[in-house]
């Protein structure tokens, strides 16, 4: 009984982290049709920047925001000066983003060495919540809470603001959006930077329990991919549902049939691709 409860709570917490990671990925892919293979690298870069700030005694939340801003800047620059030249060319985009993923990976290795870094959980968020004789780390619940706040903020932005309306217009039909005077290219840079910043923020949030080490980038990238393929690109609701689905599949799959854990993780993605290629809530046709 306690096993199932632990797994359930943990599934929701992992889902929260996955949402922070993949919301940006979903927006970038939905709006710009760019398969951004450096999304995992943004996550890792953010995590490394975050632990560096923490090491200097910066407050945890400031460190997370700072890492998000810096990584967002990096993402914005890459979009503005490089990706923009490749608009509509999928293969060159794949090559460029994959190339940058390798570059970021090696630069991180040079700067932060190969040693794993694991920042301490922020003091006020340490400890465990005890429910019915069952320990559960408080910090994971905090991640969930943060994910919920971010989800609401993004939803308000996309559904209720002028900026959101422009993004939605861009997702639905870029040429028409241009015709009615939306500066789609500026929007691209903004969304790309936002996606990178969210990934980096997720990296810092995840650092106290995932730790940061070389290779983290390519561990997170597939998770972001399956979440977005499952949920559908360009849809925040899709990213949210996909994240929690994967959170549950991951936890229960590994506990119940560890030998098939990866099959269970990827099988729903396969089914969705076959039966509903645009994803559960996707807006972009395949």
């Amino acid at each position, binding site marked *: 009984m306690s*096993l199932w409860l632990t797994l359930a709570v943990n599934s929701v917490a992992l889902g929260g982290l996955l949402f922070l990671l993949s919301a940006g990925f979903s927006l970038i892919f939905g709006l710009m049709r760019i398969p951004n293979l450096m999304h995992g690298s943004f996550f890792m870069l953010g995590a490394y920047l975050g632990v560096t700030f923490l090491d200097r005694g910066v407050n945890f939340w400031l460190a997370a925001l700072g890492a998000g801003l810096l990584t967002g800047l990096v993402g914005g620059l890459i979009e503005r000066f490089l990706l923009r030249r490749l608009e509509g060319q999928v293969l060159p985009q794949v090559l460029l983003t994959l190339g940058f993923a390798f570059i970021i990976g090696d630069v991180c290795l040079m700067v932060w060495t190969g040693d794993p870094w694991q920042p301490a959980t922020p003091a006020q968020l340490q400890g465990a919540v005890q429910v019915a004789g069952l320990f559960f780390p408080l910090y994971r619940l905090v991640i969930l809470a943060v994910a919920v706040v971010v989800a609401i903020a993004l939803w308000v932005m996309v559904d209720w603001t002028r900026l959101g309306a422009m993004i939605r217009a861009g997702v639905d039909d870029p040429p028409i959006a241009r015709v009615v005077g939306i500066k789609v290219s500026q929007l691209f840079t903004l969304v790309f930077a936002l996606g990178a910043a969210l990934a980096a923020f997720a990296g810092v949030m995840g650092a106290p*329990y995932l730790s940061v080490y070389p290779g983290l980038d390519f561990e997170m990238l597939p998770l972001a991919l399956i979440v977005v393929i499952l949920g559908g690109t360009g849809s925040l609701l899709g990213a949210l549902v996909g994240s929690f689905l994967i959170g549950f599949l991951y936890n229960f799959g*590994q506990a119940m049939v560890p030998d098939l854990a990866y099959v269970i993780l990827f099988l729903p993605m396969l089914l969705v691709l076959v039966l509903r290629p645009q994803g559960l809530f996707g807006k972009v046709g395949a």
Partner: protein
Amino acid sequence: MPRPSRRAFVAGTAAGAAAAAFGMPAIAQNAPFKIGLLTVKTGPLAQGGIQMEQGIVTLLKQRNNTFAGRKVELISADTGGNPAGAKTKASELIERDRVDVVLGPLAAFEMLAINDYIRQQGTPVMSLAGAEDITQRLANPWVMRGSASSAQCCHALGDYAAKELKYKRAATISEDFAFGYEQMSGFQRVFEEEGGKVVKKLWPPMITPDYTPYIAQFGNVDCVVNGFAGSNPVKFMRSYADLGMKRIPLLAGWTAMDDALLKSLGDEAVGVVSAAWYSASLDNPVNKQFVADMAKDYNVIPGGYSAGMYVAGQVVEAALAKTGGKADDKKALNEALRGVSLTETPRGPVKFDAYGNVVGDVQIRRCERKGGQLVNTIIKTYSDVSQFWTYGDKAFLANPVYARDYPPAKNLE
């Protein structure tokens, strides 16, 4: 690789022809002795690979780049931590750079990838990788191991857990690959023969972002044994502590509590008991100098990866002293290497069995916090531990190699 210009090529050929005319042997004798280091400097395994290089560089610096009166040149190659890269770099080192001896590689799958090639080429290799059969059922006459076979330390850990800690029920957890199986099977065999029971064996994939689903399954046991490597132990131990599991003692193999990893760990590591063939706190003069030099040059506490290459370098040095600095006859060099027995290395006395694997001390350590720093304090030393533990080579080799389900776990619940 830059292409040599035509002029350089012509000049080089002319010089070569001239050298041939005036007799090469004299030049060969003055040429440096070449050590090729197969290591990993990029990708997820880079942490251990960089430490390997630091270890051998520290030895060379101490010896002023001279072994037995002969200049030594170190050529480092980055395999990228994958089998194909290991193969390419091994042939680059051996055929292009013409190294006299190869140190490394790091990972078992890299060693397996180059095993046949080394057999054909006949260049001595001092491996760090643990794969049991490399020095057992598939022993390669050119491959030696100065670190430890996968199970070498875990045999001792099983003995200590059963006899001294008096644990009865254990759960094991390690990555789902050969190094994990071999470590945990070694522990299980000795632990169960001495009255313990392994009631749960878990094998998370090598890439596991979150260990909580596994940790939640341990149930009612006296201890949990982990054989993680790389950055995984850091993640695992933090999750273990976060879930309030510290009431169940944690045991660890050498990679999971390597001294070089201590700086990445926090309070979750305090109290963990581990078995390792090297410990930075070992009290001998060579080790003190080694630890001091590593601290000075790299600001690190050395662990097994660095010490392994330092010891491997010492073995090469001792072999060169025996051959009088000559390395032209690879067979003679190889025989000299296998006959080396040293009393003063950072890990203590070292000799080799007939299969090329090291016989040396295994330390049982308990992690403590001393003056703010985490330290693995030695609580017991098993002397002259062989890869065959106390079974003897014949009896040991009659069994299949340790695997996921060998020896079979009869007490699983």
